[in-house]
């Protein structure tokens, strides 16, 4: 079974600074997807960014980018120019690539990192 580990329960960053959230995972599969979801106080889960394991290029979405290290099974999220609206819980998640014969429909989540933005 796959596991996802987020070792930082809480991170704090000054507004406009850059912060990196860590995520490691364990899997025996070679083809899979990784995601970062944001959960603001409203509790809605919002997809921030996704990465396909077969792609070597790191995904980027505006101020959000990832550092995907497949051999190390590491998938960190970098938030540049932090804004007050970025304050939320951030969850790292894993899913098998089902088209490659992977087994699991559901996402496997980490425990989350609470990101605080200091004004």
């Amino acid at each position, binding site marked *: 079974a796959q596991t996802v580990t987020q070792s930082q329960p809480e991170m704090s960053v000054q507004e406009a600074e850059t912060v990196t959230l860590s995520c490691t995972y364990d899997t025996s599969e070679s083809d899979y997807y990784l995601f970062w979801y944001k959960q603001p106080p409203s509790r*809605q*889960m919002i997809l921030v960014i996704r990465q396909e394991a077969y792609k070597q290029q790191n995904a980027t979405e505006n101020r959000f980018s990832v550092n995907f290290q497949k051999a190390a099974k590491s998938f960190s999220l970098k938030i540049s120019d932090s804004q007050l609206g970025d304050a939320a819980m951030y969850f790292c998640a894993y899913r098998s690539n089902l088209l490659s014969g992977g087994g699991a*429909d*559901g996402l496997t989540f*980490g425990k989350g990192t609470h990101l605080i933005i200091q004004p």
Partner: protein
Amino acid sequence: EPEVTQTPSHQVTQMGQEVILRCVPISNHLYFYWYRQILGQKVEFLVSFYNNEISEKSEIFDDQFSVERPDGSNFTLKIRSTKLEDSAMYFCASSRRRNNEQFFGPGTRLTVL
């Protein structure tokens, strides 16, 4: 922009009672999911549903739980006899295809007294 909706936003029930949580997935999506998040803990997968049948379920999804797509728009999660430990946030999600991104609803907070 289409979105997943869930009702009610908050449900309070007595232990042993049956509850039905409702979800309306995005209209052209074919795959549906339920997740739960106990307060302060991680989000856990419960079940996935496609073509009117369960395609995968987790160990959490025992005989107390059932899912149904009673019509062309709703997707429901039923808990037959609620327990205190069923208190959690329940999220519905849907995806266009099995390998596509899952879009989450805003969740239903279930409180079992």
